[in-house]
């Protein structure tokens, strides 16, 4: 359970780096698979709890997009900062988030990773470098500048990563943030999760070009397109960008082509073309299946991992259910400043 007042913001820049994740060891592949599976099962559980009414509000699921979160975060250290979106459960899990605190947050409990104040869109776990989801499309792009700036300011080699959707790339903040990051050579990695839709608007109805990545040229920085459902491809591209950023060579724009399998949000009706949904539903497009095959993971490894993850999730749900709600009277008293 996170401390009530966590005053160690500086700590994330001072933590010893977790190295050894950089070489493509079999362990890493298993770890990636495990992380993706955790996201998948967490989201399925969340969906179920949402439908049954145990989770309130709005939730945006990232099923189908697991490889982006995991590929990128596997290239990061604990002291690198991640800024997320409205669709951020996967990013937090990939960064090392604690499942019980996440589940408790979704259920609005005091033990949640934002003490019940944030919910699905506003999870915070600064201890693992997760600097928050964001309900404003495009909002994270400029916040992440600040974490990158802080690392540069302190002469440390931490970096900041921001995830954002294809829809967010049409916000003014995209432009302002990339320009400033490029200008000041900030250690910044902008990851566009292009899942081809912004709510119900298809990519082509929002963007006059085929890709977002070429916009990087306008700021004199690299723009890269990768298959966002290929976890190792994402990892390799991210690792190169991270190295570049750490070396002081400035930001990268990384566009990951992927697909959102679930509807945009909660119960919103889905009118995407059937054959499109079917095409992306094929096993060869599934990021978990893809990694299983490419990583040569055996059935026994897979089932052991699944067994573990399911148990962890069960514990998390039980923890959340057993946790108290925050106390309204105490909350109001603390904040009754006007």
């Amino acid at each position, binding site marked *: 359970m996170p401390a009530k007042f966590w005053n160690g913001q500086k700590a994330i820049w001072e933590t010893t780096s977790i190295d050894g994740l950089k070489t493509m060891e079999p362990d890493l592949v298993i770890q990636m698979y495990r992380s993706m599976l955790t996201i998948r099962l967490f989201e399925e559980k969340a969906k179920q709890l949402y439908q049954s009414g145990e989770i309130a509000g709005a939730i945006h699921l990232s099923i189908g997009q697991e490889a982006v979160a995991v590929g990128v975060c596997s290239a990061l250290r604990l002291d690198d900062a991640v800024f997320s979106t409205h669709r951020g459960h996967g990013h937090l899990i990939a960064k090392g988030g604690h499942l019980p605190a996440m589940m408790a947050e979704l259920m609005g409990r005091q033990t949640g990773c934002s003490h019940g104040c944030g919910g699905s869109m506003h999870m915070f776990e600064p201890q693992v470098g997760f600097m928050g989801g964001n309900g*404003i499309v495009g909002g994270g792009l400029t916040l992440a500048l600040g974490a990158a700036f802080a690392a540069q300011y302190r002469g440390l080699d931490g970096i900041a990563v921001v995830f954002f959707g294809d829809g967010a790339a049409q916000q003014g903040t995209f432009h302002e943030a990339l320009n400033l990051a490029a200008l000041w050579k900030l250690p910044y990695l902008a990851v566009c999760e292009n899942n081809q839709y912004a709510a119900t608007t298809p990519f082509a109805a929002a963007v006059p070009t085929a890709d977002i990545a070429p916009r990087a040229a306008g700021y004199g920085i690299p723009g890269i397109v990768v298959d966002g459902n290929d976890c190792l491809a994402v990892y390799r591209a991210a690792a190169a960008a991270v190295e570049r950023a750490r070396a002081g060579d400035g930001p990268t724009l990384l566009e990951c082509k992927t697909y959102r399998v679930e509807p945009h949000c909660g119960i919103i009706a889905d009118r995407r073309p059937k054959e499109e949904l079917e095409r992306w539903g094929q096993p060869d497009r599934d990021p978990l299946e893809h990694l299983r095959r490419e990583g040569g993971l055996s059935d026994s490894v897979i089932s052991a991992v699944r067994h573990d993850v399911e148990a962890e999730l069960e514990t998390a749900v039980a923890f959340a259910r057993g946790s108290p709600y925050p106390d309204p009277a105490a909350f109001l008293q603390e904040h009754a*400043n006007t």
Partner: protein
Amino acid sequence: MRMLQYIQAINEALHEEMARDASVFVIGEDVDQNGGVFKTTQGLVERFGARRVRGTPISESAFAGLATGAAMSGLRPVVEFMYFDFVSVAMDPLVNQMAKIAGMSGGQLQVPVTVRAQTGARTREAAQHSQSLEAWFLHTPGFKVVMPATSYDAKGLLKSAIRDNGPVLYIENRLLYHETESVPDGEWTTPLGVAEVVREGRDITVVAIGYARKLALAAAQALEGTASVEVIDPRSLAPLDLATILSSVSKTGRLVVVHDAPASCGFGAEIVRRVVAQGFDLLDAEPLVVGSAHVPMPFSPPLEDACLPSTASLTAAIHKIINR
């Protein structure tokens, strides 16, 4: 008479005004996709075509600015903000351009834009999706602001807003979308600047806007026998029908204003300012404002409930000044 949902009322007003005036067009995120997130624009693109029903990229500044420029060129845009909170990414086109161009041009140009924005706390959507920001626009010269709480006014005010020759902010409440009520047949508009006395009473005047109108009526009901509560819904916050409020206060001598926004510099504070300035001697007790707690809205259901005005908190305020 017939039954009409609040959301249908919005949709009908859009259909009718688009049919009536070829210069009216609708613009916003997903407005052309299956009626938009909340289905308020249902059927428009099928009927009026993609030329007049423009789904946009997520670029609120761009489309608020576009609407302003189009209105300067003689069109009548209806702009949709998916959530009221998102005006924060477009305050410059709204406040420094749309609201000021008529004034800065010395009256040469008119800017007939309707800005629709949807609000509504109580849905557990937390701090960035629960704000009711009408006060920002009431503080901004150049804007008219309306907030319908019934199907009748949802339709009548939207039609008036679209026909108005200046910028009008039209604030919807997602908690009311599926409320149904009986409305007249035929056409109607609700004029800007005319309040409705929703319930007559003798002991206290409650001014309630948007969702809070329901709280006021519930409180009035609960207090029956104890106190006779007059409920006024201004409907149009600017221009404001102060006369109706003052005349009520001259009868009751007591005033409470209730709304979802925080009280500090909110609409309630403005009503209090105006009522005391012009009707100080009418008051027998201190006028009060019931608003939300001054905190970023928390997600957790019990916290959110505690932070918002309720029938209970409104009743407590009424008791306080009835029993002083």
